[in-house]
């Protein structure tokens, strides 16, 4: 951790860490403490009086049908996004790993969506599925299927899942591809000599060897679906119709900034912090040993 050869005590190291520490204290610790404190308060409708209510906000939250539903919805949404983006990326990476000609070109063509902001990914997809103009809506209409994600909750959910998956495939592809390329070729060749075909080699050699990457990506994808998809949902559905796409993060934003329910929003923030801490602990406990790139 500390270098064997190092500098002695002086004011200098304090000055060096000061910028980071001041920003952390002012913009991380203070707001987090504030959230915890506010989550124990209730403000009246006019914002004149605040009352200390201990854990009433949390009790209310856990008895709130709408909150619990958004909890399950977020879990459902994350599972779908993680499942689809991981499996599509795995297939593409396995195929790109097989071919020799064009592998680098394919990689370039597959990783660029990483750079697209979530809200822009939302804009791209909402334009294709626009109920009156969208090219896909038009095609579906020709096939006799009526698409309107502004009215149909299930369709709204599929649309945000598609946009979120589309954006995440590139990230997963990059890590799968790197992990597969780092598998020593003699292993695969030996299996081939023993008569194992490509599919067999994939499931008995490649897939087990990239398990650490898969697990790491699973955690990253869940974090992504929980926290980084706000822009997609905000652009595509604004949480609607009838809360059909309101995830936990969207609800914190909506209750805090649109509904101005300070205590409730703060309590939700605290719940989210607990979730992040839980995920971070899992990440550090189980993903210590990762593949070398």
């Amino acid at each position, binding site marked *: 951790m500390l*270098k064997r*050869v*190092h*500098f002695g*005590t*002086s004011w*200098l190291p304090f000055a*060096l*860490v000061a*910028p*980071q520490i001041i*920003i952390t204290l*002012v*913009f*991380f*610790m*203070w*707001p987090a403490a504030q959230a915890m404190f506010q989550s124990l308060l209730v403000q009246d409708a006019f914002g004149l009086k605040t009352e200390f209510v201990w854990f009433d906000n949390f009790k209310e939250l856990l008895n709130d049908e709408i909150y619990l539903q958004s909890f399950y919805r977020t879990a459902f949404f994350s599972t779908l996004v993680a499942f689809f983006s991981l499996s599509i990326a795995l*297939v593409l990476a396995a*195929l790109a790993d097989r071919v020799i000609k*064009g592998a680098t070109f394919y990689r370039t*063509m*597959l*990783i660029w969506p*990483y*750079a*697209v*902001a*979530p809200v*822009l990914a939302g*804009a791209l*997809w909402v*334009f*294709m599925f626009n109920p*009156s*103009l*969208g*090219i896909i809506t*038009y095609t579906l209409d020709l096939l006799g299927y009526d698409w309107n994600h502004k009215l149909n909750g299930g369709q709204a959910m599929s649309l945000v899942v598609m946009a979120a998956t*589309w954006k995440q*495939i*590139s*990230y997963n592809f990059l890590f799968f591809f*790197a992990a597969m390329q780092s598998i020593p070729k003699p292993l695969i060749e030996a299996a081939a000599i023993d008569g194992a075909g490509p599919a067999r080699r994939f499931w008995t050699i490649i897939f087990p060897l990239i398990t650490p990457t898969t697990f790491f990506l699973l955690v*990253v994808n869940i974090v992504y679906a929980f*926290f980084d998809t*706000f*822009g997609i949902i*905000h*652009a595509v559905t604004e949480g609607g119709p009838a809360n059909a796409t309101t995830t936990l*993060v969207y609800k*914190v*934003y909506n209750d*805090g*900034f649109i509904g101005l329910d300070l205590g409730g929003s*703060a309590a939700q*923030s605290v719940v*989210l912090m607990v979730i*992040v801490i839980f995920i*971070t602990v899992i990440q550090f406990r189980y993903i210590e040993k990762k593949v070398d790139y």
Partner: protein
Amino acid sequence: MIEKRPITTFISHAVIIIGIIIIAFPVWITFVAATHDAIRMTQSPIPIWPGDQFFINLKATLWDGISESDTRPVAFMLLNSFIMAMIIALGKISVSLLSAFAIVYFRFPFRMGFFWMIFLTLMLPVEVRILPTYEVVAKLGMLNSYAGLTLPLIASATATFMFRQVFLTVPDELLEASRIDGAGPMRFFFDILIPVSRTNIAALFVILFIYGWNQYLWPLLITNDQSMVTVVMGIKEMLESAEQAPVWNKIMMTTLLAMIPPIIVVVFMQKMFVKGLTETEK
């Protein structure tokens, strides 16, 4: 290639190419929309082949805004995005370099305490503490300023960890040698440490520039002044106004313009990008 299986190879190529086409399709439709005039883009079915209005739309969008009622030039939004992305990327890098240097190279009280405090920020993403952070920024009078826009995003645990790893691999002899030559800590930092970690700095810069450019929730909360609007935020307002004024050609042109800078960075600095992505996750 391990064995000759022409059919499997052919299928592999075909599936990847189909995958690429499907992934690129939304952007193709966006590009096509940006090459037609506004009236054509209100008639269903919308075109799937490009028209001839690309440069007319480009010029109008960049300098005159997207419609009569929305005359904010998109060039200005792009400039704002660029400034924000640069401040965030350079700020995060400088702040993290300095604190990693202190933690690795100095023995001082509370060293580990500071380290763990930086570590804790990993667990407090903006998304989970939006309202209280907004209140703090409002109290400090930093709403609608570049400071309020960027400062809360500048602390970075991942960047600090990455630089810590890099510094730990720097041979001790380098410090011993520069000490013998009479160099003080800051001289060592600027003349030795920064040059030896320059590829890591470049790789991180690529990732952080994209991160900064794509910020959405935070700018959305703390800016309501039109002079602070970034292009990524601008899109959302345009999508909302599309019900009244369906200028889809220019809305999609703006979408295209907002996507292109970070995509160029990823494609042309691919090596740095891949390095940055895999290293910050370690």
